[in-house]
């Protein structure tokens, strides 16, 4: 079955993500939620706007979910990433992983979030309490690099 992996304009529902991966063969479910927080790099944030190269981002999310299920045998994975304007404490990304054993669930969850940050074309613009807003650049260099294996 193709794993759940999608961009989402409505609020992410953690319960439905957990339900999407649960099954009687899985002894462990791990849910990771990324949440908009009030401070980033010492600046007071009032909200975040997420945008994406939507068709490519949706495909990358789906590729990551399928790669995770292949890499971490017997896992079931669901990923949702929010787009649009988010307020403080709203969930920007939800990753659910179920596995018969907990150790693999932890490893798979961690792998997915790192992979998502590494290759999914999504951007965020932070709105600050002082009225400014700015595109977030985690590289600090204005440019991303991706590893050779994702290059065509």
């Amino acid at each position, binding site marked *: 079955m193709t794993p759940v992996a999608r961009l989402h304009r409505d609020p992410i529902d953690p319960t439905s993500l957990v339900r999407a991966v649960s099954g009687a063969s899985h002894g462990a479910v791990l849910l990771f939620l*990324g949440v908009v927080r009030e401070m980033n790099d010492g600046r007071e944030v009032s909200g975040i706007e*997420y*945008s*994406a*190269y939507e*068709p*490519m*981002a949706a*495909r990358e999310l789906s590729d990551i979910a399928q790669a995770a299920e292949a890499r971490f045998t017997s896992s079931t994975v669901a990923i949702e*990433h929010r787009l649009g304007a988010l307020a403080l404490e709203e969930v*920007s*990304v939800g990753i659910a992983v179920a596995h018969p054993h907990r150790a693999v669930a932890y490893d798979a969850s961690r792998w997915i*979030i790192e992979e*998502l*940050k*590494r*290759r*999914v*074309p*999504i*951007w*965020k*613009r932070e709105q600050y309490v002082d009225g400014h807003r700015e*595109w*977030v*650049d*985690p*590289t600090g*260099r*204005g*440019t*991303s*690099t*991706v590893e050779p294996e*994702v*290059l*065509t």
Partner: protein
Amino acid sequence: MSVTVLLFASYADALGTTSFSLDLPTDATVADVLADLRLRPGADRLPPAPLVAVNQQYARLTTRLHADDEVAVIPPLAGG
């Protein structure tokens, strides 16, 4: 031949547009798109070698282009 160039986020802000059409010789590569981009107003705010995707797959400077390709110039990723 003609390709579509897509810009996003900070790069779209810098160039003042989210897409344009570009005419290129038939043996053009990703590097030719970036060379054209660098001549446009606002391009000084782009890095020397931005990440590029062709038809929604990450590509190299040397990747050959074909008619109607979609060439996306990708700012620093910030998902999660």
